[in-house]
């Protein structure tokens, strides 16, 4: 069992709490950097996909996992980011301007829906984001002069000094760089007053206010940050797709993102990564199972959403803390072995708590 003796304030503040963490994350970073040289290009593409969804998930995590504002319409920001990237590249803007603009425009959209809905309680806010996403989807389909609507919009390549950043290894490194930067930024945020304020808003708005947290400012910040990060992911996703249509950014995608963060582990950055791994691994898993299971099962088009829904239900019923939560419990078990008690994580039931008055 590891004991952390903190003798200086810095020990509490720093990112890596102990030497072991530095070692393992260092190893992870090294693996991340070497992967494109060690793996087949197909798997590099899959890893890039994971990173893009992890980035999108991080955006949603900031809003829903940390600030407690449930968003049922995050695909809207994903789509706005993707279309902004494509449209600006089409107009000839050089890298990295379209990417930055995608994040900025998506952040603006976040403020657009965040600001008016400040007073809405959890459920109503979720429904409002849902409606917002449906409207955005329609706008993307109808604003044909810019988005080509349902005809689809091809995504031009993003170049830097002649190098095509939207394919293969350069794209992988670009995505990895963006992901690492965002993760570091969020880690910094979480150990600062703003990060704590967001968590406070999640746990008790009234107490947060009485401690001087101006709800309107921090909720808007959360929306802007969240939308901006997901928009950035969307811009990268545009290159993965190569061709954009409004059908890629529907309600189903919003729900998938939500499932991503919930199954991954709500309220942690790790959760977004694990969730992304789950979302990308599922179709892969089905493809592999195709070789082993009868065709009657695996050739069903509905198999993927079915398993998706089933796994979500199983997680909610049996492991509400998600994959990351389960991982922490496993680590805890080994740390405490052999004195671990089965009842350590028993869920408490509260019968009369009403969510109508949060």
């Amino acid at each position, binding site marked *: 069992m590891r004991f952390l003796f903190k003798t200086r304030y810095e020990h509490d503040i720093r990112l890596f709490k102990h030497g072991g963490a530095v070692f393992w994350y260092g190893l992870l970073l090294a693996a991340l950097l070497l992967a494109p040289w060690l793996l087949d290009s197909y798997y590099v593409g899959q890893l890039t996909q994971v990173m893009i969804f992890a980035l999108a998930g991080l955006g949603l995590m900031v809003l829903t996992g940390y600030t407690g504002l449930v968003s049922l319409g995050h695909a809207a920001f994903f789509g706005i980011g993707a279309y902004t990237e494509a449209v600006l590249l089409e107009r000839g803007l050089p890298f990295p301007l379209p990417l930055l603009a995608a994040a900025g425009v998506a952040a603006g959209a976040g403020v657009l829906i965040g600001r008016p809905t400040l007073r809405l309680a959890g459920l109503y806010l979720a429904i409002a984001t849902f*409606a917002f996403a449906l409207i955005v989807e329609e706008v993307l389909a109808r604003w044909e002069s810019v988005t080509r609507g349902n005809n689809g919009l091809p995504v031009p390549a993003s170049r830097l000094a002649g190098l095509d950043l939207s394919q293969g290894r350069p794209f992988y490194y670009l995505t990895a760089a963006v992901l690492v930067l965002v993760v570091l930024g969020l880690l910094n945020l979480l150990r600062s007053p703003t990060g704590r304020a967001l968590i406070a808003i999640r746990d008790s708005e009234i107490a947060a206010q009485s401690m001087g947290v101006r709800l309107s400012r921090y909720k808007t910040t959360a929306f802007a940050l969240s939308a901006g990060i997901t928009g950035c992911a969307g811009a990268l996703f545009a290159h993965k797709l190569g061709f954009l249509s409004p059908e890629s950014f529907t309600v189903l995608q919003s729900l998938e993102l939500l499932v991503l963060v919930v199954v991954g582990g709500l309220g942690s950055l790790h959760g977004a990564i694990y969730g992304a791994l789950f979302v990308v691994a599922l179709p892969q898993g089905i493809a592999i199972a195709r070789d082993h299971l009868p065709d009657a099962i695996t050739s069903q088009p*509905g198999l993927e959403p079915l398993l998706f*829904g089933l796994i979500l239900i199983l997680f909610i019923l049996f492991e509400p803390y998600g994959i990351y939560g389960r991982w922490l419990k496993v680590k805890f078990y080994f740390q405490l072995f052999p004195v671990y008690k089965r009842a350590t994580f028993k869920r408490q039931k509260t019968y009369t708590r009403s969510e109508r008055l949060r």
Partner: protein
Amino acid sequence: MGGSAVLQFLQLAINGTAIGCIYALVALGFVLIYKATEVVNFAQGELMMLGAFFGYTFVSIWGAPYWLGMVGAVAATALFGALLERVVLRPMVGQPQFALVMLTIGVGFLARSAATMVPGWGTGTHAIATPFSDDAIVLAGAGDGRLVVSPIYLAVIVATLLLVALLALFFRFTRYGVAMQAVSQNQLAAYYMGIPVKTVFMGIWGLSAGVAAVAGLLLAPITLVEASMGFIGLKAFPAAVLGGFGSLPGAVAGGLIIGIIEALAGFYLPAGFKDVAAYIVLLLVLLLMPQGLFGRVARKKV
């Protein structure tokens, strides 16, 4: 000509009312569950879809008489709803609302995809043979300036009125209805009064599923039966919000208003507005009048 503009408007209003009735029924079931258990049932549309599919199975696949098949479908869906509550939702009593919402989202995914895998259902569209004719019933006017209603639409409106009236009587005058109301308002007090709260929850889900099934069966002749017909259930949200989330008459009123607004938007506004009109209304209501038409704002006591 003034007359035909009014006629056009009325025609749209009638058509809108019919679709609005479907929305009203889905919203009604939705609000029923929310009022009692504070669960937002994202799978309400899928319950509607199941009702339609059961109807299709009983009438078109197994060849049962139309009305028997309809009743059977409603009963089967009600049973499914009750079982859903018992098996999936009851273990979750006391958990935060968000977890329950995610659960219903998962159930929605599951139901939608499972439906495509049932032999005989699949991913295609199906029709249920109805005893309604296709000839439009003329309400007023003659020649080109006629106000008509299709028998299906008329059936929808009449059925909805009947069902809503029945439910109102049920809640007011029967023991089970009153028990459901009690459980909706104060679980703990209901327990103390000897009401078997958990069983009543099951009953509420069953009732709500039954209402959804009726909506699905009424919708089937209009949009045909297919696995993704549950998406129409998304309109339950604007309807419920417009009506004021905890209000049953509000849900009905909200559904009708949304239906009419949609029909009008489809004709008078540019293309694309029809699909989002309901959601624009929803956002406006949330921003300007969050308690809806019939709801009340609650405040936390610290």
